[in-house]
């Protein structure tokens, strides 16, 4: 079974530029998550999709960040314009809608490391 795919793996941009990250979840996983992991901190949830609908985007800085999952499969996270403090690893994860235990394990991709200069 293929895992969660993310691209690019690394990106370096200058502040005020825009950038986009792509995520393809595990086949059949209805729920998709984007996390931001700043150096020295744990991952922080930015946005959660269930199929193509947003479940939770309470911690997404909506003035500069946007995300979409138009067909309920792959997803794109965009930052426009980028700031220095956006330097982080952006992790994508996916999970099934339901599990036998009632707790759906999240499977993580390798992440995209963003450096804003």
């Amino acid at each position, binding site marked *: 079974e293929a895992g969660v795919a993310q691209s690019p793996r690394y990106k370096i941009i200058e502040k005020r530029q825009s950038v986009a990250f792509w995520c393809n979840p595990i086949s059949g996983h209805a729920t998709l998550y984007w996390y931001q992991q700043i150096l020295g901190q744990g*991952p922080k949830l930015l946005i*959660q999709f269930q199929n193509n609908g947003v479940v939770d985007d309470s911690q997404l800085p909506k003035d500069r960040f946007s995300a979409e999952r138009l067909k309920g499969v792959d997803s794109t996270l965009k930052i426009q314009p980028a700031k220095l403090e956006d330097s982080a690893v952006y992790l994508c994860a996916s999970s099934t809608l339901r599990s036998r235990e009632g*707790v759906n394990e999240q499977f993580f991709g390798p*992440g995209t490391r963003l450096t804003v200069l």
Partner: protein
Amino acid sequence: AQSVTQLDSQVPVFEEAPVELRCNYSSSVSVYLFWYVQYPNQGLQLLLKYLSGSTLVKGINGFEAEFNKSQTSFHLRKPSVHISDTAEYFCAVRKGGGNKLTFGTGTQLKVEL
């Protein structure tokens, strides 16, 4: 809201020695608890989880954790570490009935020869 505290940012240990990585959580409701491992330049991998039942949970790679409700702790242990265990370890909590994971700041485990 729930939160997770990992007091040790780094834990150096010699190979074949035992190790304990500490995790404390705070929540006013029932929670599920998780430990994830992150190897360099990789995503997070689930080590083990506590949902209910036995308070001693066994995971992959010889790791285990014990849920202690009175001390609100979920410490991770391994009786004998290997060089390949060098990685960052994250404790996470999830509110019962919800999907959102709240992570601690992580503990870097460095196993030395």
